[in-house]
């Protein structure tokens, strides 16, 4: 890691810090700009009680005091207590809702970007970018990307749940199956997510390790089967197998909905980026070396083409979030998205702001990570003209 990289990371973190401050300030201003406050939404309270409540909640203090308190609370990790259920901290609520949302959001993001990346790479690497298959696929992607999310959910439910009965139409789990079960659903969810991550990592390792082996395809197939088999076996032996299955079964439709809505853009971007890189001289050099087209595509072109895809993925993340939100509503999942909307309806400010702050911070972190990754992949970025540093 050279000096330029270190300097870049430092600069990026500094900039992120400023952004975070501005962001929180903006949230505070939005808060103040909203008509009325929480106390005004409570009906039937005599004025003295209102005044007292306001004083206790600190709503009467001068603005700058409230602002300072706001910032201090945020940076010490206190997200406040929800208005609706006194003594329940926002943090605790978010924490409890997180597993379900993550159960949908994480696989959806990974799948949509993975699918998009893979398909886009394939389409972009073809000799003739405009034949039938390519057109149908890209056309389908465009239509899917701009579809009305509730409609997609509706359609999938109609076809696969109600007509065909293959998958359940709503909820995270079937309560009947979980009656009397000692372990909470969230734990199982987290274990499932962990398994998924482990498998993903293992697959990657497998591919990496068998890179140079003669019979790598065979090895990889065997390895994949072994891994999957091992995972299934582990789950079966743990006794939670059926529970996990129930959860996965309920995940199928919502996941498909979000992935359908989201895979289009990464795919199109990746395709475009791959097509462009294909014209670069270093690709021609690789081909001239006699490398098989797959290697040329995957090792040389994809790496550079990956960069804009990652960048746009981040930009697309909010749409994946929106999709997840809508899906949570449509399928009645008790996740953060749905909670957000309920809280807004109830004017439960701490919850709303809490969700915003957390999600915003996470996204900011993702941005910083992405920029750093970008600088790592493409060394030219490390010394690019950074604002304020050089003219």
């Amino acid at each position, binding site marked *: 890691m050279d000096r330029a990289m270190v300097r870049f990371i430092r*600069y990026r973190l*500094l900039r992120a810090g400023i952004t975070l401050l501005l962001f929180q300030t903006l949230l505070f201003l939005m808060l103040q700009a909203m008509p009325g406050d929480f106390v005004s939404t409570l009906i039937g309270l005599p004025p003295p009680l209102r005044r007292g409540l306001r004083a206790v909640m600190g709503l009467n203090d001068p603005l700058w005091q409230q602002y300072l308190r706001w910032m201090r609370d945020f940076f010490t990790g206190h997200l406040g207590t929800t208005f609706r259920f006194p003594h329940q901290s926002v943090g605790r609520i978010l924490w409890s809702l997180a597993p379900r949302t993550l159960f949908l959001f994480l696989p959806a993001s990974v799948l949509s970007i993975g699918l998009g990346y893979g398909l886009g790479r394939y389409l972009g690497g073809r000799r003739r970018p405009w034949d039938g298959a390519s057109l149908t696929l890209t056309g389908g992607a465009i239509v899917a990307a701009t579809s009305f999310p509730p409609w997609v959910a509706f359609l999938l439910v109609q076809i696969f749940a109600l007509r065909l009965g293959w998958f359940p139409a709503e909820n995270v789990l079937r309560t009947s199956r979980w009656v009397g079960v000692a372990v909470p659903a969230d734990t199982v969810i987290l274990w499932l997510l962990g398994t998924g991550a482990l498998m993903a990592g293992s697959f990657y390792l497998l591919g990496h390790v068998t890179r140079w082996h003669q019979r790598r395809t065979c090895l990889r197939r065997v390895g994949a089967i072994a891994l999957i088999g091992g995972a299934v076996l582990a789950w079966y032996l743990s006794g939670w197998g059926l529970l996990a299955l129930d959860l996965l079964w309920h995940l199928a439709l919502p996941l498909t909905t979000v992935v359908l809505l989201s895979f289009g853009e990464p795919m199109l971007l990746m395709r475009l980026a791959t097509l462009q890189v294909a014209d670069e001289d270093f690709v021609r050099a690789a081909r001239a070396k006699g490398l098989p087209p797959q290697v040329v595509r995957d090792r040389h072109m994809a790496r550079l083409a990956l960069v804009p895809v990652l960048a746009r993925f981040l930009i697309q993340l909010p749409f994946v979030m929106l999709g997840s939100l809508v899906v949570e509503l449509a399928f009645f999942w008790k996740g953060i998205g749905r909670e957000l909307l309920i809280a807004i309806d109830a004017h439960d400010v701490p919850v709303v702001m809490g969700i915003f702050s957390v999600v915003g911070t996470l996204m900011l972190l993702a941005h910083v990570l992405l920029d750093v990754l970008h600088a790592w992949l493409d060394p030219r970025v490390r010394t690019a003209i950074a604002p*304020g*540093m*050089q003219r």
Partner: protein
Amino acid sequence: MSEVLVRVEGLSKFFPLTRGLFRESRDFIHAVEDLNFMIAPGESLGLVGESGSGKTTTGKLLVRLLDPTAGHIYLRTDGREVDIATLRKKELKAFRRQVQMIFQDPYESLNPRLTVFDTVAEPLVVQGIGNVLDREERVAEMLAMVGLTPPSSFMFRFPHELSGGQRQRVAIARALVINPTFVVADEPTSMLDVSIRTSIMYLMQELAQRLGVTYLYITHDLAVARYMCQRVAVMYLGKIVEQAETEELLQHPLHPYTRALISAVPIPDPRIKRQPMEIKGSIPTPINPPPRCRFYDRCPIATGFCEENPHPPLEDKGGGHYVACYLV
């Protein structure tokens, strides 16, 4: 002493290194330091040096693309000498009518989205000269002068429809369209095919005579300097080490660096044998150079005296031949 068109005194340009967000820099790149030279009207001065010697920076300073850190650049305008180093923004525009530049890269110095007409007419547009019809006439005139005839067939072409030599002619036309008195040419032929170089240089000479333009010709190639320039200044690491009339410099180089440069030029006659003048290493970094002679590290004849004393000043060794060396 006849009137001088351009007189540079003590010109310096330092670039700060790694300016942090809040701190000022402690290290500086001494791109150009304490330059002194003069150019007579109608003359071509060649500025010769290797990469990193500061010659391009000098060119940019003279057209005020960069602002000098110190020093003066006197330009004779309307009989008076104006220090263009201290001009402020508003006065710069008028100054720009007098001093123009031809760039090195014929491919990048023209906007690919603009036609030849747009490009050559741009200075006229910016300086507010004439109306559209006048400009068309003037552009046609210039195109004919640079050898792009018939002008009507070139006027509305785009840069990618022209060859390198043709593009550079367009660049020359653009530089001369508002009748400047002084033109800085930054290696205008180094990116062209060798076979075309002569024709471009010939064109530039011819135009100089016809229009009475003075050149500062920046190049790394001594042969080119010999062809184009009456006087030559050799730069090394931001300083001028030798300055003389071209033939005098080439026949009787005094500074060890100049000698090494000349001896490096191949002579296509196998019968002539010369003693190659070896200098060690490559050009050192211009960051915070020590105050001694800049050439000390590579000089084959350097002595202790050269190390202990500051960089030697340019001195006239007779007949307008200036050298910056203690040992000559």
